[in-house]
């Protein structure tokens, strides 16, 4: 079911900014319109562009927030999520745990 849903209406996760919009829905109870506007504003692009793979592929690499392809040296996992925290001005649970464990 993943493929038809993504093709018909999905944001595409880290192919675009779907993960970021999801984070705002879950962390702030934002409806889709508000969550997209929040993310677009933080990224400095339009709400149309946040679901545009062409725009987001380059921007994600530049912002170091995780990319969909295997790029050696590009942050992923906790490192990418720490950068997402700063951009979205939010806290991510796994990053909080990591900071506690490493005493950062």
């Amino acid at each position: 079911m993943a493929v038809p849903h993504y093709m018909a209406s999905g944001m595409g996760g880290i192919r675009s900014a779907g993960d970021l919009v999801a984070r705002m829905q879950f962390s702030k109870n934002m409806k889709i319109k508000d969550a997209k506007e929040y993310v677009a504003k933080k990224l400095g692009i339009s709400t149309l562009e946040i679901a545009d793979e062409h725009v987001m592929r380059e921007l994600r690499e530049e912002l170091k927030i995780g990319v969909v392809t295997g790029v050696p040296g590009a942050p992923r996992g906790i490192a990418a999520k720490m950068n997402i925290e700063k951009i979205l001005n939010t806290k991510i649970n796994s990053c909080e745990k990591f900071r506690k464990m490493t005493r950062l």
Partner: protein
Amino acid sequence: MTQFYTRMGDGKRVTMAKKEIMCDIEDGIADAVDMGGVPALSQNEIDMLFEIISNKNRIVGVEPGNEVVLSYDIGQLDFTGDNGNSGNGVDVGRLESALLHERALGADTFELAHADYSIKPVKPVIANEMQTMEEIQNEIVAPFFYGAMPNGGLYYAPDGPYGNPADLMREFKIEEAMTAAELTANHLAKDIEYVATRMVTAGADGFNFDTTASAGDADFVGTLKGVAALRRECPNTYIMVGMAGESVMGIHGSIEYEGKIVAGTYPHQQVVFAQKAGANVFGPVVNTNTSKSLAWNLARSVTFVKECVKVAKIPCHVNMGMGVGGIPMCETAPLDAVTRCNKAMVEIAKVDGI
């Protein structure tokens, strides 16, 4: 007369004329209005629905800019599970499955799941699940939940410690049946608190309560109490409550949450309970009738879900699997039907996600 390719609720391809499709759309809406007491769709929305259903293309999609979040249930079991879960039977690891969903399948969120996908069996292997959560969180970027069904049925005999209400009622032991349901609700709430708080401790972004109320009203109340406890202990965790069916079965009949009976409630009423308990996202369900057409099922589903989204103060991610949300009840749901249901839910019901 022009005939349009469409589907029945069991997935079978049929052809229908415009008049037949319109008639089924109106009947489906009327059924939702009658059962749920929700408002009917407008004529403009009915026309939109017909355009979506009768579109000549195999696949349809939303207009650019209308994309929504695609959250997941069942975790890696969509790869590893058997056909009971519409799984592929591919024994891939849980880390690999999570990263494939994130990097190859466009998932906006994903989750870790136990093979039995229920709260109760997670308890004995909680440390194992916590370690795997910690490991995957190190690699994944997208929000990564732990997911499980509350599955209150596992607390009744012969699987659990309490009498089975179905057996007790058959023996006219009504009070005993109600007591068993109440004990189950409380036990389930404690187990949810135990499992969910530990998974958050391990770094989970949140918890997905999938197929809530599958064992009826006591299952729903137990889940709501568990959600409230989780919210108290982990105020910033992400919580998603997805339902099992369109109406909560009254196995107990009069069990309440915050002073209100939950039995018999429909999506626009269920969401009020979920948001009160502390959920961030609600997943409404509308069941598919296999004897009716796609037009009937989709119109009915959209009518229910549109009202749920309107009432909700939190985002709604409608359940769109096999046999719910207008989608035909079959293991390999046809692409044409899935994408039509998808577009209608986003552009008519205005869901926040799927």
